[in-house]
């Protein structure tokens, strides 16, 4: 919805509410009695955020979604710095098609086709990356954004 057609309630639903929810999630994880022991077999705790790539490039009609996404990415970076090795956190940026059921923003960022085709499959392509992020051997990745959209978004 164009921002000029978006009343304050719709704006809150698209932008502000997701950020408030994200703050709540971060507080809940940070408030756990034992954030995690990076030296234990299970390793540190992991917090993985799933966002549309809209957060990276912005899309007409989805200004609030993009704003919230960038805000949550910054929150993840701040939490990564605050939590250190006790809880790592990573953003997975996926094709908007997977999150918006066809009613979302375009993921056609480039004049080129997605390098691996798109938009990917939640079970085989995205869930496996969540597994990877959660693996105890993954203990040196935090605060970053991993783009899992089949190679559409290739900017830094």
């Amino acid at each position, binding site marked *: 919805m*164009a*921002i*000029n057609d978006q009343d*304050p309630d719709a*704006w809150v639903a698209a*932008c*502000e509410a997701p*950020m*408030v929810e994200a*703050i709540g999630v*971060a*507080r809940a994880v*940070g*408030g756990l009695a034992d954030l995690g022991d990076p030296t234990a077999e299970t390793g540190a705790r992991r917090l993985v955020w799933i966002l549309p790539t*809209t*957060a990276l*490039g*912005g*899309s*007409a*009609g*989805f*200004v*609030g*979604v*993009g*704003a*919230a*996404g*960038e*805000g*949550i*990415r*910054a*929150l*993840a*970076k*701040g*939490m*990564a*710095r*605050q939590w250190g090795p006790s809880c790592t956190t990573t953003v997975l940026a996926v094709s908007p098609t997977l999150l918006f059921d066809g009613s979302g923003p375009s993921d056609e960022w480039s004049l080129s086709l997605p390098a691996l085709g798109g938009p990917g499959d939640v079970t085989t392509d995205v869930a496996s990356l969540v597994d990877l992020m959660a693996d105890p051997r993954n203990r040196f990745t935090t*605060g970053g954004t991993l783009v899992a959209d089949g190679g559409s978004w290739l900017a*830094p």
Partner: protein
Amino acid sequence: MNTSTIPSGAGLLDGRVALITGGGAGIGLGLATAMARHGAAVVLASRRSEVGEVAAAELRAEGLRAFWVRCDVTDPAEISAVVHSTAEDLGRLDCLIHNALDGSASGPLEDATDGDWAALAATSVRASYDCARIAHPHLRATGGSLVLLTSAAGMEGSEVRPLYAMAKAAQRGFAKGLAAEWGPDGIRVNCIAPVAMTPALAGAIHHDPSLGERLVARTPLGRIGDPIDDVGPVAVFLAGDLSRHVTGQTLVVDGGGFRGL
């Protein structure tokens, strides 16, 4: 004595009208001063008359066109009043810079209150939404420019001010999306991420001298910027025709301290 490196009458913004929220002091006043010296009529929109009135009077004493109007950006009615009165009284609106921000709580997330976030969100994200919607018809009429003030903290995250970083990042995301949406209307939307010696930063350095030393140490150009002469020209650029094909971008103006884009 005016030691500015910006020559008065340079004229890159002759005949243009700019509205700057939070324009009564600090970065906002620096941007307004630079734009006025380039020929723009500037409206300083801020809450405190004892600051904003004086700032506008000082600019007028320099021979510049500057006005102060009270505006609390958490109130859409006040934003609407200042935007529409600016366009009506000065004949047009070419550039709106949303710089105002309230809420600078520092510390880890668990120490931040819901009120801290509410103040930040109201003056950053929500005010960006309100300013944009209200200014849209005027900016469309002039092929104008919307500029939001953000921060490198929004790009690299902050464990000291996580919610501030979140709010500033959200404004940057807002600008990217709105640039795509408003491009067909001929309106450009960009961000400036500055570090400059404002009264607030000077106060913080007075309280903690090592802060100034650390800031300079991470800055390749070796000094903290000046709001008028270092950050101001970027606002002049984004408000004027020189940037007519630039939109959706963030210009980091910090002497090279942040180089992550």
